[in-house]
């Protein structure tokens, strides 16, 4: 049953060291504020999962929160590599990062299987690739009717899923729209879930068949305006493309990353303060 709470309370209550944590968002509605709060609270040893880990995962990995990453595409979309992710994989900094690598189709199916309480997913996948020899989670299964061989992979069942959405009502019923990604499946596949939202409303006033998470499948709902920035929230604000570009320079070296993290995340009280600090920076840069 959804409890309205502050984000710091929600992370403290539901995300523990060593947990298997899904933060999802396919370019849209990425839960940046929640990721920052995980960093602030100093979580360690997390096994993270995300289809498209990007800046927020680069930050959590660089901050030392993660021991493992399950993913299908890890990059700065439209810009290039994730330097902190690469540094962890290539050099073990700040800690070694185990990876479980999948394709989008696999991971999307594996979330679906998790939401459906199945132990594995079946897909037409990976044929001819190096995944099956190299990645032990890719196995095969034979159709009991046709004899066809298909790929089978383990379902994803996170300890906790964290997503951002546009609205929730007082009961914690959550509405999201636009690019939906795999957020519904992530929440339904997880044991616990936290949803940050742009707006708390009296009534969702949702159209028929909209994507809604009933409050009783959510554990904590937190009001965090702009909580998906620098990604975007459809109907609320646009993607801050300039930040994605700036991140390439910030994250390239360990020292510049550490300085940025300290000033923007570790030394800020919450996401609202982070946004103020960031806004100050941007206006300074604009003045130069």
């Amino acid at each position: 049953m959804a409890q309205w709470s502050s984000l710091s309370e929600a992370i403290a209550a539901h995300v523990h060291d060593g947990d298997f944590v899904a933060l999802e968002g396919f370019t849209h509605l990425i839960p940046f504020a929640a990721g920052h709060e995980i960093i602030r609270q100093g979580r360690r040893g997390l096994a993270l999962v995300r289809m498209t880990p990007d800046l927020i995962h680069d930050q959590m990995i660089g901050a030392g929160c993660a021991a493992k990453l399950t993913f299908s595409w890890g990059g700065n979309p439209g810009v290039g590599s994730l330097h902190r992710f690469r540094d962890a994989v290539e050099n073990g900094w700040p800690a070694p990062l185990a990876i479980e690598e999948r394709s989008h189709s696999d991971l999307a199916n594996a979330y679906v299987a998790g939401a459906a309480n199945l132990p594995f997913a079946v897909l037409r996948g990976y044929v001819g690739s190096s995944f099956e020899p190299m990645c032990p989670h890719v196995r095969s299964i034979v159709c009991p009717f046709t004899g066809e061989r298909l790929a089978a992979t383990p379902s994803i069942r996170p300890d906790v899923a964290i997503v951002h959405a546009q609205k929730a009502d007082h009961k914690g019923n959550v509405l999201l729209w636009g690019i939906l990604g795999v957020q519904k499946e992530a929440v339904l596949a997880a044991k616990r879930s936290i949803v940050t939202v742009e707006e708390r409303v009296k009534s969702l006033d949702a159209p028929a068949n909209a994507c809604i998470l009933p409050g009783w499948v959510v554990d904590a709902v937190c009001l965090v305006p702009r909580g998906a920035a620098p990604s975007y929230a459809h109907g609320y604000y646009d993607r801050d493309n300039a930040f994605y570009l700036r991140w390439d320079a910030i994250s390239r070296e360990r020292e510049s990353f550490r300085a940025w993290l300290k000033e923007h995340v570790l030394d800020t009280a919450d996401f609202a303060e982070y946004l103020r600090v960031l806004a100050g920076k941007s206006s300074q840069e604009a003045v130069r």
Partner: protein
Amino acid sequence: MPAGFTSDEIMTVSAARMLRNGAICFVGIGLPSTAANLARLLHAPDAVLIYESGPIGARPAVLPLSIGDGSLAETADTVVSTPEIFRYWLQGGRVDTGFLGAAQLDRFANINTTVIGDYHKPDVRLPGAGGAPEIGISAKEVLVIVKQSRRSFVEKLDFITSAGFLTGGDARERAGIRGKGPIAVITDLCILRPDRETRELTVSSIHPGITREQIRANTGWEVRFSDDCGTTEPPGEEELATLRDLLARTAKAHGATGVAA
């Protein structure tokens, strides 16, 4: 290089020409997205662009910077969940053309976007597979667009992310893959197509002003040229104007990043 257009421009225009009107196209971000949208603005207004984030039938006014830009959702016929895209639409067998980029490929058009060096101790950790493994096998045919160099066109891949023709000949069919695979690789130097028998990528058309020597110098294997290898039709005025206009609008909308081109 003849005056009037850049090697990037002829690459994008050549790739766009290959997308037929009405085709259902699964679009990767970056170069494939540029080419597919250019095609849509030129000869293929009824091409249906599917992005893996969920939009089906997207008609963005400017190029998306990410695979899930809001403009894709706003202009699409419908937006479904990402699992549905991969399950019902790609695996469902509804995609005519998969449009892929590549970090590396080999002579049989196998693609690597995973890792350079040893998988467990990589020299370079690349972003990973994304949709490529299943686009490569489930789309009825695949187009690859990639800049050509000895770094991208290599003798041997460290990892096959997405199957092309595997070891050549009928290896792809023997592996049980349904889709036809890469029917063309479009680069900034030329167009390569698989040989009918061996399935080795063979230069079938050379961009104006490019020499065979340049192509050899930028290919990591001893590249062959088809018997009827010709010269690529240079970009026409309308093609160039449309592409430049699209890129200018995009730069204006996103701030110039140079990426989407």
